[in-house]
């Protein structure tokens, strides 16, 4: 030993070095907790569970400080047991939080898929029912807006922006609520049991008259968009029909583009008209005149408005918008024109029942809204 002093110093420093790196090892949970913090961060912990994520980070920091405090001690005096227990709990909590975040995201994706499916079904239902009535501006406008919102929400889901997608889909749902409310407003009177009973009575009387007098009777069902021709009480044929822009409303005055409801008769036949062939009915009848006078007294119609007239069954096609008349395809008009005569009864009703009609869906909208 040339220099015992140097050897002694080297020995002590060597011991320090060994102690620094080879003393009680840092708890393995520390690395796991640190990795977990990254996993939580990447999983979106700061977005989905910010309070819990911050709590985890604070716990990790505290554990790190305690490990640091132990590391500052001379190797033989280090004791990681208390901080190890703390880290074990932190890891358990962190893993639970990670599961919760992932479950939360999966649940959000499932919830969105369900709500998107529901919205798409509502959109389809509303588009379908608007085929049955023409006064659908409010309904269609809102459905169109809802469809745009749903499309936007789907784009957001593709980017895993579940929260924003759900909120956007929710906005779409509000548009559909408005569309359904508009449809209910439009058809509410069709759900009234008293009104339905009256229409059923009219339709029944028309069939009975056809049977009793062995004549032809025509019954028009506005909501179903059908015309049935009865002969001797039996349904001879049923045709699809078209109505006016406000065809589902009961006609009150000239220019309202509504189709009257009531019991009428054919008063004239025109073999060549602007709309192929036509048959004029005796609108307004006494009931119509009474309703017109009442509405005018109540100020429900413009002061200068007349009661109107010239309501016909004519050709020109079921898909064209009439001004209140009942439109038929020309080939169907040929049949009806041939079977009907001046004096043939024409009964126009809103509906005869709710089942198997769009009214069932309207009723459901009403129930949902309530």
């Amino acid at each position, binding site marked *: 030993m040339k*220099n015992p002093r*140097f050897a002694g*110093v*080297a020995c002590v*420093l*060597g011991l*320090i*070095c060994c102690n*620094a*790196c*080879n003393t009680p090892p*840092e708890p*393995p949970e520390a*690395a796991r907790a*640190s*990795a977990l913090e*990254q996993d939580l961060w*990447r999983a979106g912990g700061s977005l989905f569970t910010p309070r819990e994520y911050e709590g985890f980070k604070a716990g990790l920091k505290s554990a*790190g400080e305690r490990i640091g405090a132990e590391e500052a001690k001379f190797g033989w005096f280090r004791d990681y047991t208390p901080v190890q227990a703390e880290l074990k709990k932190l890891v358990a909590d962190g893993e639970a939080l990670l599961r919760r975040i992932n479950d939360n995201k999966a649940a959000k994706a499932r919830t969105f898929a369900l709500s998107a499916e529901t919205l798409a079904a509502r959109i389809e239902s509303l588009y379908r029912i*608007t085929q049955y009535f*023409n006064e*659908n*501006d*409010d*309904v*269609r*406008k*809102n*459905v*169109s*807006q809802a*469809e*745009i*919102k749903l*499309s*936007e929400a789907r*784009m*957001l889901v593709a980017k895993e922006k579940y929260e924003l997608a759900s909120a956007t889909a929710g906005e779409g749902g509000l548009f559909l609520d408005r569309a359904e409310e508009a449809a209910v407003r439009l058809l509410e009177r069709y759900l009234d049991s008293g009104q339905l009973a009256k229409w059923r009575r009219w339709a029944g009387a028309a069939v009975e008259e056809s049977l009793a007098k062995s004549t032809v009777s025509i019954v028009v069902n506005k909501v179903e968009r059908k015309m049935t021709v009865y002969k001797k009480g039996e349904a001879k044929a049923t045709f699809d029909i*078209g109505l006016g*822009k406000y065809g589902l409303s009961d006609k009150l005055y000239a220019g309202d583009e509504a189709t009257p409801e009531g019991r009428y008769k054919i008063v004239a036949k025109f073999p060549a008209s602007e709309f192929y062939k036509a048959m004029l009915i005796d609108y307004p009848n006494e009931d119509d005149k009474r309703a017109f006078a009442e509405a005018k007294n109540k100020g429900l119609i413009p002061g200068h408005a007349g009661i109107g007239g010239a309501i016909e069954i004519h050709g*020109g*096609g079921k*898909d*064209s*918008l009439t001004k209140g008349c009942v439109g038929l395809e020309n080939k169907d008009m040929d049949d009806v024109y041939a079977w009907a005569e001046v004096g043939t009864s024409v009964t126009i009703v809103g509906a005869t029942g709710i089942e198997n009609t769009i009214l069932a869906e309207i009723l459901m909208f009403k129930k949902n809204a309530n």
Partner: protein
Amino acid sequence: MKNLTKTVVLVLAIAVVLTGCKQPTQLINDVKAAIETVTTAGADKYAPEELKAVNDDLTKALDEIAAQDKKFFKKFGPAKEMLVALQTKVADLQAALPAKIEAAKNVAIQLQGEAQAALTETAELLKKAPKGKGTAKDLEALQADLTGAETMYTEIQAALDANDYIGAQDKANAVKAKVAAIADQINAAIAKVKR
């Protein structure tokens, strides 16, 4: 003098070993803070790919640190190099972000213009469409659909005004898709008349 030199070399060697045993905690925290900053500045929206790459690099560096941590002789040098390189990458991303935001804004404005053009063209198409037999009812309904799309168009500008350029792009694309569907239906209605 010779002994003193040996002592200094030994102390330095031990210092290097001791330093090598320490995790680069400060560097990790600095990189993470830089990533948080760039994320808050909009990298998650306007540079998602680059942000993902940065996060992936951070994961790799942290994995390397964790791997070294398990060893008896710890060597954090490569992890430090990764983190230093990552710092540069994040700084580059931060510097490039304004241009990316501007680009997203330009795309949104372009899509808004396309949505507006589609609305105008479709409104013209609707005006010119023959409202005759078989189409009047359909065209009235399509007019209502188009009115709905026109109303939603205003949301694009609202998103642009709120500096939500990706949102504005989504809204413009959704409006464009709906208007294209309406135009298809108008053309189908016109074809029905011509048949």
